[in-house]
């Protein structure tokens, strides 16, 4: 019966009628290491949330057999008891507690009266770390003294301490340096040799290829293929991940790119706010022509958002950027200065960085240019309303009234309001970070149309997007970012998703085509 340690059969998970997972099958043999691959939004995280009990049994359809018995978990606690341990992309350690305290968090060895049995816990913690070949870690020191690589391994030790039978690692290397990744991969090989079963999720396909026995590819919530690694290579994984034909999701282009370079960013570098040793963006330079739409592609965490935030003066940590507009150096140290100089940015996180929830739709739209409606100190509300109505008409923003709360609008219309706010500043360069995230298909098309129209009027646009199809459908040129470095600069002429994805995944130096 129990050929497989884990069997997931026909898993379907819906969000508001949209099928995020559409009948996925997944089998894992004991002692096997599965590489789960898919593009951003393919459904990998959703699948793992179903498996780990984040979405309780009953909120999805299908069946999970663990060790031959049906698994009907109501919470993460239930799956942990069964021996399924998930290690998330963002580490769940408490920085101020000691290494041993973290490993035993929620699972403490106690003495009578609820006192902590420190000697026992420290001893066991040391044993676990020795097993992982990181015996040099001092278990009584706070976790924050150790870097991301060690912290990742401490998480693994914590999982092993819970007698993990199935270990799920979700993007474990996304915040690690190259040498830390090497250590991690060695540990993974050791664990495999000891018979630990694991599911490894990573965008870094060379890692997947190095340690996994079987590759499972999913796309658009559907299971595409399960193939032994010996029959696969990185190129074939990519082909399976992409495998989608472009359809009519994009409007007809009506603009032509100008000859003149209007914008240039030189030597943009950002340092991680928590770990100043680590560069989130490492010395990227690029140019932009009049009326050009430049797509910036890259995997999650590659530094795309950090790059554009630094250019706009909105990066929260240390950063450097030299920005030139029409041949003159401009100061973009703060968003205020950037906007004055002629830049505008629609940020990625609409809820936290885009809308102001207590202001109404119209007030949100005029926030950046309110001063221009003021006579002495008083806002000329008639003039303001006139401008708001103009923008609402131009962007086809569907709101019954500009006096409605912004939070009452749909995602697409909220996005249009944020876009309108930035367009009202009459920018020369428009930066759009994930402009269609959480936006329905119809509004997406309208936003694309608007972008083309703005480009036709001569505005230059930088668009960051996780959706490769969108990048290829909209951009005149594509920059590919990987691990904070420029990995490619392609003119979008018969450019394929495979080429872009290969560049994003590559470890090599920038290539020019």
């Amino acid at each position, binding site marked *: 019966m129990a050929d497989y340690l884990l069997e997931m059969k026909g898993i379907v998970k819906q969000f508001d009628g949209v099928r995020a997972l559409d009948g996925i099958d997944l089998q894992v043999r004991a002692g096997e290491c599965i590489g789960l691959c898919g593009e951003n939004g393919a459904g990998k995280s959703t699948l793992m949330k179903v498996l780990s009990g984040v979405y309780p049994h009953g909120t999805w359809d299908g069946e999970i057999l663990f060790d031959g018995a049906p698994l009907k978990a109501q919470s993460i606690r239930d799956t942990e008891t069964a021996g399924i341990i998930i290690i998330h992309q963002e580490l769940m350690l408490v920085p101020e507690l000691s290494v041993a305290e973290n490993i035993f968090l929620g699972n403490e060895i106690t003495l009578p009266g609820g006192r902590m049995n420190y000697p026992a816990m420290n001893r066991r913690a040391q044993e676990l770390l020795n097993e992982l070949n990181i015996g040099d870690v001092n278990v009584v020191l706070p976790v924050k003294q150790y870097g991301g690589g060690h912290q990742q391994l401490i998480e693994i030790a914590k999982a092993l301490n819970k007698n993990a039978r199935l270990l799920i690692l979700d993007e474990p290397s996304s915040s690690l340096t190259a040498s830390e990744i090497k250590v991690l991969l060695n540990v993974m090989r050791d664990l495999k040799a000891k018979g630990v079963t694991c599911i490894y999720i990573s965008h870094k396909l060379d890692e997947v290829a190095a340690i996994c026995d079987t590759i499972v590819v999913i796309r658009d919530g559907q299971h595409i293929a399960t193939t032994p690694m010996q029959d696969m290579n990185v190129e074939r994984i990519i082909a399976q991940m992409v495998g989608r034909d472009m359809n009519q999701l994009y409007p007809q282009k009506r603009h032509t790119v100008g000859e003149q370079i209007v914008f240039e960013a030189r030597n943009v570098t950002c340092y991680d706010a928590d770990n100043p040793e680590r560069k989130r963006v490492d010395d990227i330079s690029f140019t932009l022509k009049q009326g050009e739409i430049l797509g910036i592609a890259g995997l999650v965490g590659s530094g795309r958002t950090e790059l554009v935030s630094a250019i706009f003066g909105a990066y929260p940590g240390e950063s450097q950027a030299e920005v030139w507009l029409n041949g003159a150096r401009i100061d973009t140290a*703060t*968003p205020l200065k950037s*906007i004055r100089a002629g830049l505008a940015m629609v940020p990625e996180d609409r809820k936290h960085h885009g809308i*102001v929830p*207590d*202001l109404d739709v119209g007030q949100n739209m005029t926030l*950046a240019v309110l001063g221009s409606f003021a006579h002495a100190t008083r*806002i000329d509300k008639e003039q303001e309303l006139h401008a708001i109505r103009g923008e609402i008409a131009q962007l086809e923003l569907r709101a019954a009234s500009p006096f409605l709360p912004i939070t009452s609008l749909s995602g697409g219309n909220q996005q249009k309001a944020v876009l309108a706010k930035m367009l009202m500043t009459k920018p020369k360069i428009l930066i759009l970070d994930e402009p269609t995230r959480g936006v329905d298909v119809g509004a997406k098309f309208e936003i694309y149309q608007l972008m083309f129209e703005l480009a036709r009027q001569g505005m230059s646009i930088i668009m960051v997007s996780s959706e490769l199809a969108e990048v290829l459908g909209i951009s005149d040129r594509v920059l590919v970012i990987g691990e904070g470095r420029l990995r490619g600069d392609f003119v979008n002429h018969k450019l394929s998703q495979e080429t872009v994805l290969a560049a994003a995944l590559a470890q090599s130096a920038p290539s020019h085509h």
Partner: protein
Amino acid sequence: MKSNHIKQLFTQYKMLALLIAIALIWTFFSWKTAGGFVTPRNLSNLVRQMSITGVVACGMSLVIIAGEIDLSVGSLLGLLGGIAAVLDVTYHVALPLNLLIVLGCGLLAGLFNGYLTAHLKIPSFIVGLGGMLAYRGIVLGVTGGMTVAPVSAELVYLGQGYVTPQWGIALGVALFALTLVLIWRARRSRAEHGLAQPALWRDAVKVLVTAAVLAGAVSTFNHYEGIPLPVLLLLALLGLFSYVTTQTVFGRRIYAVGSNMEATRLSGINVQAIKLGIFGIMGLMCALAGVIETARLAAGSPSAGTSGELDAIAACFIGGTSMRGGSGTVHGALIGALVMASLDNGMSMLDVDTYWQMIVKGCILTLAVWIDVSTRAGKR
């Protein structure tokens, strides 16, 4: 469904609910005091007492709308009132110059608080807590813990003086005319933009209620001595602050900063300057309140303004200012101050023990915010 409906009604008519609460409180106290509570003399005293909390609450509402808090205002008020008293009593500084110096000190202290919060990123709660101790310490040091008295008659007049009845009537008429003009302009503007007009009877009711309230207030005051000067100041501040919060760029930005600071910053707004400005205004309000307090007591007391910050903050919250910032009104805060002052005054008349007064006020504050939170729930 039904409870949702009630919630909506409540949110829409929050101010009305507060006014009804005040009416209930007043009715209760006049019944208990056999009408003593609603005599012109007592009501005049009541609003004069309220004016100090009210002046501070004006500034505090801006601070809270911007998503900050200032706990130092009670001590700062005491310090600035003390400075006014010392300048007057010890150095015989002329009143206009005295006022100018005290306002200047208030502005500087406020800006200093603002600088610590906005530029050095010290949480305003901590800045306030520090200021609360330090400013009170300075008062005690400067006055040696002694009451500074007697202050000059001119200064006393600021706190205890009255507008003559004729001027009071003129003021009432002027305010009524202003109401008419504002309502008419609002209607005209809505008509021009093709917006739905509120029913004519609604505006008519508004006008009638305003007329009744103004007439009642002016005649009540005139039955005693006239409109108290601090109340006149408070009215002026109400007008000024309402104008700033609803009509100016600065006002709109205060709401934006409090509602979502990051989005506001990314829209190219200097949020630090906004916060600095707000704390500066808060300092000015402390100076005004401090001078009135000294004038009202006719002495500089080292304990003046103790726990004044709590009254002002409570007034804002009772008046519907949101704790997480981004929404609230100045007139709401003043109605909140009136609730607190009414409770204080009524319970004092009934000789209720101080400890009971504190318990009741604490309960009322908690209750008011609970109602606010529960009717707001689901909006986010």
